[in-house]
């Protein structure tokens, strides 16, 4: 009758050990670019941890989505191409010493355009996408100028850039109700406001 107690004791020990192991605190390491999964995933992780690059892309997606499918297609195709091209240039020429205040300009401009829902031809949207891809892509590539594995990182990052711009613009394109379009414009307004504050901070 006492024999079944042994496996139960074992189970209790296993549960306790597992609970103890889970409860042991460890460093979060949330911002490590080196994931250990290879340079492509490092690039993906680097971009995913860069809100200053993510927010303007979302704003561009919102603006293009609000303007229609032609604008969305223009931004989805132009942005990744410019990102890779200028990312490679960034790898070649390295970082450029510019004021950090300039980081706020894409936020301010694209957020403002999304908030105002300004009408413009599709080639203007494509040009905006190229300018954004050039600025952010160059910065991204320049960060890898000192390492030898920059190209896979740029390719990894551009995959996520493509997914992000495609998802953002598609989500806005599919918005059926007026209030969802208004909500998207509010997001643009908030992004532009953050950019304005960031600019003040940079010039302070």
């Amino acid at each position, binding site marked *: 009758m006492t024999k079944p107690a042994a496996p139960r004791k074992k189970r209790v020990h296993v549960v306790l050990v597992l609970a103890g192991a889970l409860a042991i605190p460890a460093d979060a390491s949330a911002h490590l670019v080196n994931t250990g999964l290879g340079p492509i995933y490092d690039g993906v992780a680097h971009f995913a941890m860069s809100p200053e690059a993510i927010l303007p892309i979302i704003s561009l997606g919102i603006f293009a989505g609000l303007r229609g499918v032609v604008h969305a297609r223009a931004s989805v195709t132009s942005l990744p191409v410019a990102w890779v091209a200028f990312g490679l240039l960034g790898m070649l020429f390295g970082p450029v010493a510019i004021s950090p205040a300039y980081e706020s300009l894409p936020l301010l401009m694209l957020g403002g355009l999304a908030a105002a829902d300004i009408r413009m031809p599709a080639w203007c949207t494509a040009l905006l996408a190229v300018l954004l891809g050039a600025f952010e892509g160059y910065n991204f590539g320049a960060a890898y100028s000192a390492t030898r594995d920059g190209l896979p990182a740029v390719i990894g990052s551009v995959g996520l850039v493509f997914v992000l711009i495609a998802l953002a613009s598609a989500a806005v394109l599919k918005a059926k109700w007026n209030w969802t379009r208004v909500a998207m414009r509010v997001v643009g*307004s908030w992004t*532009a406001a953050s950019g304005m504050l960031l600019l003040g901070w940079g010039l302070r």
Partner: protein
Amino acid sequence: MRRAFIRHTVPFVTTLLLSAGAAEAHVDSGGAYGVAAGFLHPITGLDHVVAMIAVGLWGAQLGKPAIWLLPITFPLVMAFGGFLGLLGMPMPGVEIGVALSGVLLGAAVLTETRPPLFAAAILVGVFAIFHGYAHGAELSPGENALFFSLGFVIATGLLHAVGIVIGLLYQWPRGKITVRAAGGAVGAVGAFFLWSALA
């Protein structure tokens, strides 16, 4: 039974205590802290809170397109005020302007004032500059700029949303009284702060 429990628990607790990392009690940095600090900044000043809610209340009371136009323009213009404050541009009478915004916006909701849309937008925009300036001038240089700005703007927008949600009651007779009473309360708080600013 009790001894067995102690035999199991004591090593477990001891292991946990020995595995504890460094305390890091003063680590107030990073993205999460920046967002939290920015988020708390507008909602910890009552004079700001009531004015932001009043913008939402008034927008809801005025109906379309003011219900969405005022909350879209306010954060942008407020950020411009914050920009001026961050650069240290001189602006006299900021506290009076902030308090006056509570009084006038509250009074507008209480009395159901319906000016033309551009007049309402200009009034709200002027007050937004005072609010933004007051916040911008107070921001400490050590903050994470992007995350702080995001938290700050999101909190402001959500305060407008609170006002809009309360303002949606305006479509019912009793809700109308509630919204107007909320406007009166905003005006009273604004009057208190105006008194303090002038004293």
